[in-house]
């Protein structure tokens, strides 16, 4: 079986495309983006606001295990076409990362399967690369923290 989630990031371009095929009917896939309670479940964030309409806005909040807010994200919805398309902006509050634009296309493959294509456009190539590297950097950080934790116990 091939990779279900594919990230294509061409060198030197300020955009990237994430595609994923789901073992879900199109309607259920779209619902996962539409209903705030469901978004909260799979994104692991609190949905402060989600106005699914043209010129609507959204705001999510992520907390750590102790309940401290670690990240707030927000944006504006430009297009909202049920079972087809969501166009929105995405911004991480209080970070050096600038706002980017997201095009989400929802497609029916069969009655029970569907596909999501996320086309993300950043302000610059450098900004895109920073975002791509973020989970890599966090992974290193986490490994480092884990190491410190273990090392601390050894003392």
């Amino acid at each position: 079986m091939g990779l279900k989630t594919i990230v294509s990031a061409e060198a030197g371009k300020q955009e990237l495309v994430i595609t994923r095929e789901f073992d879900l009917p199109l309607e259920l896939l779209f619902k996962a983006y539409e209903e705030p309670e469901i978004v909260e479940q799979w994104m692991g964030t609190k949905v402060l606001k989600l106005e699914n309409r043209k010129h609507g806005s959204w705001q999510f909040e992520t907390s750590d295990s102790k309940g401290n807010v670690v990240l707030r994200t927000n944006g504006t919805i430009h297009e909202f076409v049920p079972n087809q398309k969501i166009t929105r902006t995405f911004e991480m509050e209080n970070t050096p990362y600038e706002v980017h634009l997201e095009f989400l296309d929802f497609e029916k493959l069969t009655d029970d399967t569907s596909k999501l294509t996320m086309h993300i456009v950043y302000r610059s190539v450098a900004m895109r690369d920073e975002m791509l590297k973020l989970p890599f950097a966090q992974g290193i950080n986490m490994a480092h923290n884990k190491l410190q934790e273990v090392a601390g116990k050894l003392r």
Partner: protein
Amino acid sequence: MELRRDVFQAIADPTRRAIIVLVALHAMTPSAIAENFDSSRQTISKHIQILAECELLEQTQNGREIYYHLNPKKMKEIADFIEPFRKLWDERFNKLESVMKKFKPKK
């Protein structure tokens, strides 16, 4: 402070990407590489230098000539950089799928 060049920076430039494509086929001397471009020899050799600093290109000495070839290990490293990003989304989407599968019977 040592200034480390970034591989992403290295491959962001179209000329440098073209050089990578060229030497991927076979090892080449700097002058053979430069012949493929309209830019000056100095410009191309600066690009080669940046790629070599990032270890994307490796050099071998053959008599008096220096040959550059591609370092496949480093190219793979670029792919590995993106892997945690892909994994993050993959896990997120797996969660979405399992949440929605449970949602089904309630409907």
